[in-house]
């Protein structure tokens, strides 16, 4: 009867129901591997089925691991062919042979090892004179291969010997134990993966069981396949919003090509100024010169450069109109500011203005990881009667505090068209030092007077690049990873939203 029962058990199929039945009868599975041996089941398959039952909370699993004795590749070879010493003994044969012939038939590796064990076991002898190997025992037993067949019962000293001979090793083996789970049953219910429109229509969702979600860490949902805005332009939007909040009006900066007149002369930048050098500025060969410049204004600018006026001694040189007509790619958006202020001066009545712009400017620079030939300049300016340097500092402080930079200070600086001029520094916690973050100043009277702005009107302005704060915020060290064709599209898609501030 016992035999019969065992026979039945051995033929039991590996199914979820049979596993559940077994647990029901025995209350547990203490060792999955023992069960597999007993039932002649595949352990991998058992594992798969149990995991699905675990996910349905029908059973609870616990993983264990053991160190077990296992044959190495070398050990398996012994089991298959016999131990090296046995092979050598057989190879010597009754007639005896030479070592070289042995190596030929058995291979050098086997002979090296087998020969020394045979000698130790006194199975063979070796005549140094003739080089002949002959048997010295009539009959031998391959105990090594026999013992390897019965690994579990080896004593420790034997075990260590075979470990040394690299025939046996200890390996980690996992098994698991099983007990009943909260939803234990003998039958496996089917679980629904998802709620469908049909289920809602029929109301069947009330009866159905839904598969628990896998909410373990690292398991993510499907990535949405929408589009993405560019990192730098997200920062542009942030900057723009700050200006709009502060009541600034955006200037039309969609004219990259500008005359030297508006880019330099109108700003009281003398014609021999180094910035007007071809080394720094892109001059154009086509269209090489500007056509229409406001004649009266041009005359007043010339006068101011050559002889000064309104309290200024001027630059005192011969101003050239041809030089002023030379076209270039604007080197700063202040060229547009000059146009705006000139227009403002032509109004019948002066009204205070706050202007801003964020747009491209061009410098004929040698490219490096932080400099490109084109970059975006952020510029803000306020025009009103009686503005002070303190007002400029106030508006700059407000602007940068909206950017999250609250610790700023000002350094005297030189700028050809502003006086006083100030560089703006901000303390950067990460770098542990003061970083220059912008430039500012009060436009020179020599710039404003020729425009015919009313006396007493002052214009305060500041500027910075858009790229620099964006690089700090998104931790870029090479500007070409951020803008231009070498931009990493994946980076654009993964960058965060642009919160206020330069931290991220």
């Amino acid at each position, binding site marked *: 009867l016992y035999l019969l029962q065992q026979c039945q058990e051995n033929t039991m199929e590996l199914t979820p129901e049979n596993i559940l039945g077994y647990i029901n009868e025995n209350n547990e599975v203490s060792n999955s591997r023992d069960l597999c041996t007993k039932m002649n089941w595949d352990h991998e398959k058992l594992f798969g089925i149990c995991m699905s039952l675990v996910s349905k909370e029908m059973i609870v699993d616990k993983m264990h691991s053991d160190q077990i004795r296992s044959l190495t590749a070398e050990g398996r070879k012994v089991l298959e062919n016999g131990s090296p010493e046995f092979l050598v003994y057989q190879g010597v044969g009754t007639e005896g042979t030479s070592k070289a012939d042995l190596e030929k038939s058995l291979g050098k590796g086997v002979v090296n090892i087998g020969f020394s064990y045979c000698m130790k076991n006194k199975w063979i002898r070796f005549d140094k004179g003739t080089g002949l190997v002959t048997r010295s025992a009539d009959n031998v037993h391959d105990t090594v291969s026999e013992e390897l067949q019965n690994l579990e019962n080896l004593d420790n000293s034997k075990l260590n010997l075979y470990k040394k001979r690299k025939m046996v090793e200890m390996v980690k083996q996992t098994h698991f134990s099983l007990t009943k789970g909260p939803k234990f049953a003998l039958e496996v219910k089917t679980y629904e993966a998802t709620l469908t429109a049909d289920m809602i229509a029929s109301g069947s969702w009330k009866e159905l069981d839904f598969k628990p979600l896998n909410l373990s860490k690292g398991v993510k949902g499907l990535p949405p*396949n*929408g*589009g*993405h*805005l*560019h990192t730098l*332009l997200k920062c542009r*939007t942030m900057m*723009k919003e700050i200006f*709009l909040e*502060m*009541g600034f*009006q*955006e200037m*039309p*900066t*969609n*004219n*990259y*090509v*500008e005359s030297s007149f508006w880019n330099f002369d109108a700003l009281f930048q003398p014609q021999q100024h*180094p910035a007007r050098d*071809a080394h720094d500025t892109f*001059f154009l*060969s*086509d*269209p090489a010169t500007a*056509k*229409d410049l406001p004649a009266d204004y041009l005359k007043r600018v010339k006068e101011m450069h050559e002889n000064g006026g309104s309290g*200024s*001694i001027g*630059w005192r*040189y011969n101003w050239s109109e041809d030089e002023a007509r030379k*076209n270039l790619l604007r080197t700063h958006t202040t060229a547009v500011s000059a146009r705006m202020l000139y227009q403002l001066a032509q109004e019948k009545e002066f009204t205070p203005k*706050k202007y801003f712009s964020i747009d*491209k400017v061009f410098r*004929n620079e*040698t*490219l490096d990881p932080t400099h490109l*030939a084109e970059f975006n300049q952020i510029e803000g300016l306020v025009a*009103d009667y009686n503005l*002070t*340097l*303190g*007002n400029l*500092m*106030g508006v700059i402080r407000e602007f940068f505090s909206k950017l999250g930079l609250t610790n700023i*200070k000002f350094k*005297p600086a*030189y700028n050809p068209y502003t*006086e*006083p001029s100030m560089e703006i520094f901000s303390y950067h916690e990460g770098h542990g030092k003061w970083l220059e973050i912008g430039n500012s100043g009060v436009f020179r*009277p*020599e710039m404003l007077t020729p425009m015919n702005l009313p006396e007493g009107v002052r214009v305060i302005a500041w500027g910075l690049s858009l790229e620099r704060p964006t690089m700090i915020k998104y931790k870029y060290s090479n500007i070409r990873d951020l803008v*231009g*064709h*070498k931009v*990493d*599209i*994946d980076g654009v898609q993964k960058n965060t939203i642009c919160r206020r501030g330069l931290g991220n």
Partner: protein
Amino acid sequence: MPTVSVVRDELFRELGKTYTDEEFEDLCFEFGIELDDVTTEKEMVRKELGLADDQMDEDEEIIYKIDIPANRYDLLCVEGISRALRIFLEKQATPTFVNDVAEGNEVQTMYVKPETALIRPHVVCATLRGVTFTKESYKSFIDLQDKLHQNLCRQRTLVAIGTHDLDTLKGPFRYEALPPEKIVFTPLKQTREFNAKDLMEFYKTDLKLKQYLHIIEDSPVYPVIYDSNDVVLSLPPIINGAHSAITLDTKDVFIECTATDHTKACITLNTVVTMFSQYCAQPFTIEPVKVIDQFEKERVYPDLGLKEFEVNQRAVCKAIGVDIEAEKIVSLLQKMQLFVEHKGEGNLLVRVPPTRSDILHACDIYEDVAIAWGYNNIVKELPTCMTVGKEFPLNQLSDLLRSELAMVGFTEILTWALCSVQENFVNVKREHLMETAVTIGNPKTLDFEVCRTSLLPCALKTLAANKDAPVPVKLFEVSDVILVSDEHESGAKNERRLLVLYSGKESGFEVVHGVLNRIMQVLGVPAELDNNNSSSNGEKGTGSDDAYSWRESQDKTFFPNRQATVLHKNKEIGIFGVVHPEVLKAFDIVYPCSALELNIEPFCYDQHGNSLL
């Protein structure tokens, strides 16, 4: 911004105080110069040779590299920096510079010949008597001339300085302009005579001097200065004569500045004499030189006269936003090297010494008050004027469309406005349109030859640089192209474009066509009716003026029979189609692409359809 290297310990000796690097940095910050680097002579050499920094000797002299504002020529040498800081720290009064001829000395005279007007019309001169040079001050004297040549003198084009040992010469001097063959002399550092023509040829391989040759090379006459024995002092702006070379032992220094710009010549001369007259037997005393010009008009140089400005205490305070007493302003301005006299009722007469050539207007004096007061002591106050914020309509429209394009699944790129002729025209088979591009006259690299006339090449370039991106790749950009335009003042205009690029295993023509339809849908622009039928997707078309349409086109950039132009109000405003395989090959792109490029400016209008451009 020029950088001046000064030996730290020498500077501290002059300042009478030792600073830590941080303390000195703070002083610089307050004064408006910048401690750019702390280094040593050997370290600079190591850097130049690209060697490791680690074997620094203990005894290396520390050098401060200090950035100087570009308009402060008086700070281009250690003498000027230490003097300015001593005065700023109220350890010294501003010196008064005097023109004087010591007994027994004869005033030197320089006669200017009319021919000089053809090449380099101005010359100004001065003499420093009884100078005692040390190794350091001699080096500083040479360095200052170098710095002035690089900055104010614009690589000697505007002004060139020559300094001579007066004891080797005999006045009066003549400034002439002669045919190069006729000028024969032994130049500095050479042992034989050259005529000026051969000399120019000789210097073509001289690393330092070759950059100045162009200034006079093509002129029929070269400027030259002789003494009364016909000894050549210099061939400005190239080289001095060997005969009158100054040495460490020179006592009397004759300085001549030849120039194309008289104002800058005077500033250059003043800078040299105000800095180095401190080493004269009579410090800060300069012996003037008479210059008799081509019209026999006599002028005496250097002009050390003080420029006068009248400023008012209330005006100063109003400009800065502070409340400072007149007497305080007087002492603040003294720290900035200015002489001030309080005339009563807050009226101040400010006299500006020749070292402060940067002061052109009262506003420069306001700045000096603010610096001496301390920028960071000024109370920060928001301007009180009320204004209303407003976006530029074209930018506002662009931003709205950018959001829509991101919403339909495209990723924004941002490319450069400058590109090569190859990319902008040849790669996209548009060689015939080359005249439409704004062309750069002085590009440093081939990458920046023209301004782009289309957004497509830049987008294809971006796609090519992102070969790893999983297909389909969907990109867009809303940016400006630049076109030659007779209607605009400068002769060129920007045009705001929208570009959509699709790249996948199949060309995706329908995808970009769909984006066009979507853009027009959100713009509220209806599709034009074809034969009075509604379009296939059931949308109602219209025959109104405002509608848009598309029709087959023959653009070489796109694949034949797989392209169309977009029409709006009878104008072509865009194009879409499958990008031609030859174009893809030129950009090294393997997957087929479709693109849409559209001018969005016609759609920049208000709710009533009035243009906001």
